[in-house]
């Protein structure tokens, strides 16, 4: 009785989880992350850091 109750509740929840997963697009595809402001890559992104000025470093000859 207790065993069946335990199996029923856990398997019921697994079934609901699978049902919800099937309809979730982000199971197989995720959007690309927001680009880093400073494009460092290997350091934690600091949200407080001021983003570089648009066009900085690109010079029009």
């Amino acid at each position: 009785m207790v065993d069946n109750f335990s199996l029923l509740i856990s398997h019921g929840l697994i079934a609901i989880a699978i049902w919800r997963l099937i309809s979730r697009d982000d199971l197989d595809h995720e959007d690309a992350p927001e680009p880093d402001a400073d494009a460092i890559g290997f350091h934690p992104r600091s949200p407080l850091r001021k983003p570089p000025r648009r066009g900085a470093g690109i010079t029009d000859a």
Partner: protein
Amino acid sequence: MRDLFFLGFLACFLLGGFKRPFIFVLAYAYIDIVAPQRLSYFLLNAVPVSLIVFALAMLGYLLADQEKTHSRFAPRQWLLVILLGYCAYTTSTADFPLAAQDKWGWVWKALIFAIFLPLTLHKKLRIEALALIMVLCAASIAITGGIKTLASGGGYGVLQLLLDDNSGLYEGSIMSCIAIAIIPLILWLMKHGTIFPPDWRVKIFGAGLIFACLLIPVGTQARTGLVCIAVLVPLLLRFAKYRFVYAGLTVLVAIVTIPFLPQSFTQRMGTITDYKAEQSASTRVAVWAWTWEYAKDNPLGGGFNAFLQNKITVDMVETSENDSITSVDVTQAEEIGRAYHSSYFEMLGEQGFFGLAIWLAIHVGGLIRMEMVRRRYSHTINPGEQWIAPLATALQNGQIIYLVGSLFVGIAFQPFIYMLIATQIGLDTYLARRRAEAAWRPIRKVRTVPAKA
């Protein structure tokens, strides 16, 4: 009836896999943890269901995973490959070839799955889904254990966890360790879950499940479980905001709870400090000493189940006081083929110093990597990254609890733990890829303005 239930459930599970191939991976995790083929009487146990679902999971990934180029192979997966290869070698030179083959029969599956699993975990939702399925599968055993403990108080070797079988998670000491190790993961799912978003139902179920997990060591009366709880509390308090308030409350709850615990439980827990008078504990220490001597003579390891050759004799000292006279009784106990009762000595005896070193590198590597992830993301203010540091902490805490619990239980190759390690690797490689993607910029062409004449 139960057979039909499992068959129907598994059929639905696998049907989901044909729509979304990652579901096959979850189905294999379910089969590995719950082992429905062992819970059923005739239908499922007649077919190699585990092998079939593993093949489906592998094929699903190879043929239908649209973004498998996002998979990464981490250094710890290479360590798992080396461990697998080394275990194959020690099995071929084992002291007890047949017994070694027997254990190898399930160890290689656990290791192969642990190597394969992180490749599939290249989406955040997949990592969460695996964590959820692991917890819910363990819940199927924890809930029944918790209710039975509340109803009867349990007892050492008495509490039956769904199955009268001392294998997998159905063994009392193993389940005690795992039940406590998953508590940090349950707490994470309660707060950051998106499959079951946090609401009052999730909170009630999560709290009930944690309570059931805490009852498992009481019901099974496994001393390992009590040690694991003692480790869990400071780990949970490590990052708590009001840790001293919670620490005080924990002590209060512990004091209030003790009178309600079964007497047999408190008596058995008392033997933790008085191990010399208790056969189970004192032969365990003797086996560890034997294993150390054995490893010195056989540094490459004796292969799986090498403990079968040990012969342990221990003097058990029992001191009793009667009318100010202290009497000391010394009795001798002899045991043959005593199991290691410690994952560290299990690795040392079976896989030698090299195997133990690889195994430790896998685990210590996990602790370090999760700490690095936690530190990197703990101060992020990006709402999309709030789940990362707590998950890394939960996976790290679960592993610490396992590593402490496995001091006293031989669970070095427990598949559940390898899934936890795979989740860590999956999280780590997923984040590394996302960071690289975020940092990547195409080289812009420098626009040149034609010179005016």
